[in-house]
């Protein structure tokens, strides 16, 4: 099987991946304008400040959109069908993630989800929120 993609952390993104290794989802928050920022940056795209601090995210959000993949990249082909979603976190940032612990047919836009850090490489998957 072809090698799967894995993230290569850089100086800016390293705290994110260190958080994932510890089981915590973190995002940046701008010390100047107060807005949350994702993906990680060296400069705030809203106010140009460099005061970007790392904060623990709630890990909770909703499905903004999703697709059920039937013809995936070769290295993922043995897993189809699977769901890739854009998750809008309660903090207001959007991130892409695979969904776990759910049948594709049960997924819908606005479905409440929570982060589920797992796998090798360890990644922030999401799953339907258990208690609503």
């Amino acid at each position: 099987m072809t090698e799967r993609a894995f993230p290569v952390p850089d100086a800016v993104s390293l705290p994110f991946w260190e958080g994932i290794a510890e089981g915590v989802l973190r995002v940046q928050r701008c010390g100047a304008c107060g807005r949350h920022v994702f993906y990680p940056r060296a400069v705030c795209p809203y106010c140009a400040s460099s005061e970007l601090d790392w904060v623990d995210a709630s890990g909770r959000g909703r499905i903004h959109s999703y697709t059920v993949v039937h013809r995936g990249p070769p290295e993922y082909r043995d897993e189809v069908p699977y769901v890739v979603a854009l998750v809008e976190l309660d903090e207001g940032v959007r991130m892409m993630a695979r969904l776990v612990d759910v049948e594709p047919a049960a997924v819908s836009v606005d479905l409440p989800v929570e982060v589920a850090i797992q796998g090798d490489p360890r990644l922030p998957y999401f799953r339907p929120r258990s208690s609503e």
Partner: protein
Amino acid sequence: MTPELMAAIGGVAESDLGDVAPKTAIQLQAEAAREALAEAGLTFGDVDALFSAGGETFAASMAIGEYLGIRPRFTDSTNIGGSSFLAHAGHAYRAIAAGLCDVALITYGSTQRSQTGRSLGRGGGVRGPQQFEGVWGLPAPVGAYALAATRHMHVYGTRPEQLAEVAVATRKWASLNEKAFMRDPITIEDVLASRWISEPLHLLDCCLVTDGGGAVVIVSRERARDLPRTPVWILGHGESHTHLGISSMPDLTTTPAVYSGAAAFAMAGVAPADIDVAEVYDSFTITVLLTLEALGFCGPGESGDFVAGQRTAPGGQFPLNTNGGGLSYCHPGMYGIFTLIEATRQLRGECGLRQVDGARLALANGTGGVLSSAATIVLGRD
């Protein structure tokens, strides 16, 4: 108000299309360039500005300049994905209007079908902003367009059969174009029964994977007087982009054609209702729906109804993608140049069975990346 006529398309040509083995991408560009220049009564020595993107090479305008022996005084290898060539046409207009060049040559070539095929894979280490997207197995680029389609369906109630209308109508146009790759008629049921690629997009919601290339020659007003064929004037141009990765698209249902289209219409002094024929980048059926809304041919969320009942097919009220589009005619990976080629031919009245009667004003719109960039050109004839 009528814009000042500063630059005109004087020649267009496709290279061989489909499966061109053993030809190379640069060869396709060179052959198309020779033919497009011949249409304009010109040759390589007349070219003083080069524009190219892709072409399976570093610095595409340098590659074609070397190959054809052209030393330009204006050069532009801007690559914003499949819309690049419409941006090039706008840049060529600006450069000519500024007196920086007189004869601009835009080229593109790709052998993705015969050489490499289109990879849906990523694999390996993923760096930079892509490290947050490239690890999930989202097939590129179709998965990103599927995310936009799901969102549009959720927000506006758009239905799969409305997406399918686009594929069916475009195939009807292709059946009238002997150069089109896929010409057998299809039905809405065929589209919906074709296999899923990335829901809600079926196989027949997706563009072709072909080889192909093309060339467009744009000349100054003074040169346009000598053209052998009817000059096709560039009346309006706009371009923009809003993101690179789909996670960063501000609104999944609004493409940057909102900005490029508004700029192009304002510059041309015309409105969407004035357009006689539209050539709109159709990488996927959803690309067309979102673009029709962004350009103002219909309101947000109305594109599903707009294309219903085969309204964009031959004989319909809104002639769209009259060459058969990327869905059925040709899609070598960056389709934009072909929208300019077809729009030019329609305005010259050269399209035979697929000619839109009396077409005087045309719109060409390119989309690049994952709904990331847009470039719009409004063209007219005397």
